[in-house]
């Protein structure tokens, strides 16, 4: 029974099925909204799903120069780690694995998809992938520092004097004291987190790693068919997870108590967050250079987050 429950969590809700649907939906909304911002009609809402299924039906080519096993295993590993992360992020009050979700675990799990892309790219043996890997890695180091500080700041603010690494404790604190976004000390951190999200999911101004016009999609250059579909699904799920993480860190503490309704509300909230930090930015910005991106995250975003951390210490 326990196994069945766990399998249910991992595969249906809040695991694979739920987060895939939510992620693809969010990606669809994103594309539609950006199109509307540019006065276009835009693709149908389900376009990312169409893309995904189409790619499943395509031929999978493994280049002769590739390290075959790594090349094929990389997308699966990335997807699985994201599904695990999705299970660990609470849906308002509900968290699948008994409320023991931990911020550091999530932090580390979130690096795995990027690493999977990098490993896959490295295994493909393409020079474009080499450049892509380099950029992906630098991007990752750029946003990881602010992300770490944000998580610690939130942990401090929600720690009730101490510090907590537990997401469920953070949610409980917000249930008692209102969402953290209402605390003025957390505003810089929230802003920093909003800026981290587009880099984490590799959306437009920060998509140096997958710049399709410069380096032919970077690390994904040799992927086709089902593995590529898994990567696309991963990036959609990442969209959901990052926004859900934001809502969990700053906007949670309420909810109807009915899991199904909460899940729907969460997707709506995610969509709003995504509109603010992904779609809007994506529609108006041009792609940054990688060294500028790095400087931006370490000088601006990290400082924002650090301000919050210090404020949390002084006030809390």
């Amino acid at each position, binding site marked *: 029974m326990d*196994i069945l429950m*766990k*399998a249910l*969590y*991992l595969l249906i809700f809040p695991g694979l099925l739920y987060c895939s649907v939510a992620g693809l939906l969010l990606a669809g909304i994103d594309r539609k909204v950006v199109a509307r911002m540019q006065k276009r009609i835009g693709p149908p809402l389900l376009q990312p799903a169409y893309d995904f299924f189409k790619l499943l039906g395509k031929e*999978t080519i*493994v*280049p*002769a*120069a*590739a*390290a*075959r096993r*790594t090349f094929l*295993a990389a997308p*699966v*590993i990335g*997807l*699985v780690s994201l599904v695990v992360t999705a299970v660990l992020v609470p849906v308002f009050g509900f968290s699948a*694995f008994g409320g023991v979700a*931990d911020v*550091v*675990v999530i*932090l*580390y799990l979130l*690096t795995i998809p990027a*690493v999977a892309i990098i*490993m896959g790219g*490295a295994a493909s*043996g*393409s*020079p474009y992938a080499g450049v892509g*890997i*380099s*950029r992906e*890695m*630098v991007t990752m*180091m*750029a946003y*990881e*520092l602010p992300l*770490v500080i944000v998580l*610690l700041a939130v942990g*401090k603010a929600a*720690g009730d*004097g*101490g*510090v907590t*690494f*537990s997401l469920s404790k953070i949610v409980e604190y917000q249930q008692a004291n209102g969402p953290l976004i209402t605390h003025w000390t957390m505003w810089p951190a929230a802003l920093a987190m909003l800026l981290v999200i587009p880099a984490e999911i590799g959306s437009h101004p920060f998509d140096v790693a997958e710049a399709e016009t410069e380096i*032919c999609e970077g690390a994904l250059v*040799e992927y086709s068919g*089902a*593995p590529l579909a898994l990567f696309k699904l991963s990036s959609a799920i990442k969209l959901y997870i990052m926004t859900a993480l934001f809502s969990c860190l700053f906007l949670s503490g309420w909810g109807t108590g009915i899991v199904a309704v909460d899940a729907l509300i969460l997707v709506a909230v995610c969509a709003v967050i995504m509109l603010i930090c992904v779609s809007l930015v994506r529609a108006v910005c041009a792609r940054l250079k990688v*060294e500028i*991106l*790095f*400087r931006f995250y370490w000088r601006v975003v990290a400082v924002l987050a650090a301000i919050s*951390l210090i404020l949390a*210490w002084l006030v809390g």
Partner: protein
Amino acid sequence: MIQHLPILAIMTYFLGAFLTTLLGHNSKSVRWFLVMLASVASFVMMCLLIKPIFLDGGIIGYWMGGRAPEAGYAIGIGLEVDALSLFFGLLVTFTVLLSAVYSIKYISRDDAQDKYYTLFLMLAGGVLGLVLSGDLFNIFIMVEIMTFAAVALTAYRNWAEGSLESAFKYLAVGSIGSSMILAGTIMVYSQVHTLNLAQISALLAGQGLTNTTVFAFALLFIGFGVKAFIVPFHPIAADAYMTAPASISMVFSGMVNKAGVYGMIRLVYVVFQIMDVKSVNYLIVLLGTITMFIGVTSALNQHDFKRLLAFHSISQIGYVITAIGLATSLGIAGGLYHAMNHTLFKGLLFLCAGAVFYSAGTTDLDRLGGLAKRMPQTAAIFLVGAAAISGIPPFNGFASKWVIYQACYEAAAAASGFASIFYAVVTIVGLLVSVMTLASFVKVSQSVFFGQLPDEFDEVKEAPLLMRIPMWIMAACCLLAGLLPGPLSRFALQPAAAATLNIKGYIDTMMGGGYAASQMGDVTPVAELDFSTIGYWQPVAWLVLFVIIMAAVLIVALGSQGARGNKRSTELEKVDGKYATFFGGEHSTYSMVGGSDLFWGLRYNLRHYFGFLSDMHSGVVNDYALWAVTAAAGIILYMFLFL
């Protein structure tokens, strides 16, 4: 019988070393037999100690020649094995065993193998003697034996580029450290007129801190700092790890620097019991944090596989030191856990580097590439090691790092004012260092195992089975240590942490019951480590996940077609059309991003800092000595000012 095991384990190594020189000169098989016998026997002896010490909580004291203390003074030389010593002893014997197996094939192309094995066993005996010893001067002697053997082994392949100079640097800076240990020892002796650790501990606790004690502590601390290769004593380590044979690099990072760490723990927690002094905590944590940061950033700068690993070794020791400096039971347990994990994964990575060197003849990241096609098992093992050291769940590096962050942040929460901000910054640096570790291992995997295969490595073959066996064992241990933190902490880490904090038993075992009671305060309780909060330690969930992964991999593998990757690269050149790499329409040729160029964006932004690092590791032995002396002076000054 059981109390004779520690000395027997040490003597087995030394006897083995002696016999190897005597008998193993001509015959390969005799040599191997002796070495394997010595390493297996010692390992078994250490394993036999698990039950009385870890499980039953006993402490074994042993007086050489039966010279028990007379009139309350220790006159003999003692061995004392508590859980802490045994923990490190197990690490040492385990590393030696695997390294010995690995050496058989790895060293087979060199001459003077009997010398190699003699020095190897001497090194092993030195480190084991150090961790099991209960006598301060004996510790010094063991440190010297260890350094001596280590230097000789660094210079063993004197045909290799730079091995001689790195051996000399190691010797020069290492001997400064040894002299400090000796000077510190004698200063302690001048205060308490004994060399027995247990008695020193009891008497010093009664005396309180005097100027001489502080000076002695500073000297010993610096000495063990040099042996643990904390920054700024680290450049010698980077050189030595790089140029020594990989089997020895593994031993270096697996146990030689652990010996320094052990010395520090013994020193600050047991001998001087100084960890309730906040300024010592800050100093150790600060040194640890600097060590991990400088280690990892220097690693980002490297373009040699083994040198990169060497800097990571330094960086990971920084984690251990930081955790130990926190002086909480969680911190100590985390530090010990990470020390163990570091032995496992860094040993594994060094063995991978050795396998690459054995097969391809170089470890230059700018020249290598695409070896995963020729050495698939080594590549797989390397990925395990890289994931473990970067702290990717579910491997062991993650679990121990998690404990360390937790300890850091709890310390931050417990402290107030400046200290809490300091510990918070330490946590942030720790997490950042982890990401950078990941980055540099991405660099290694891209430029050694993946990417394109240069023509010159066409003929490369997989490493021999005898080299792969220890690698696989270590890889399995990495996974097991990550998946079973609960039993591990219950049966090994908690006893060791408890032994570190509760030294009454340690003193009483050696000096007779009740000796400590007159001098010591209360026993510090050790909190139960709770790994359940990590959140993913749910075996059932992992089982389900495993099934899902397998199914997914199967589906993907079945649905894919493509050319098999086992062609020669000259043949790959001929592969055209569909299965060729996309090259913008051109015929695909060899073209790779060089390993040292992979983090351009980062390096460009931090160019001044990286320039400073390059200058710091100038390669001139005077500079290294200057770093060491300056740091030593600084530490001594700090101790006098704040203690």
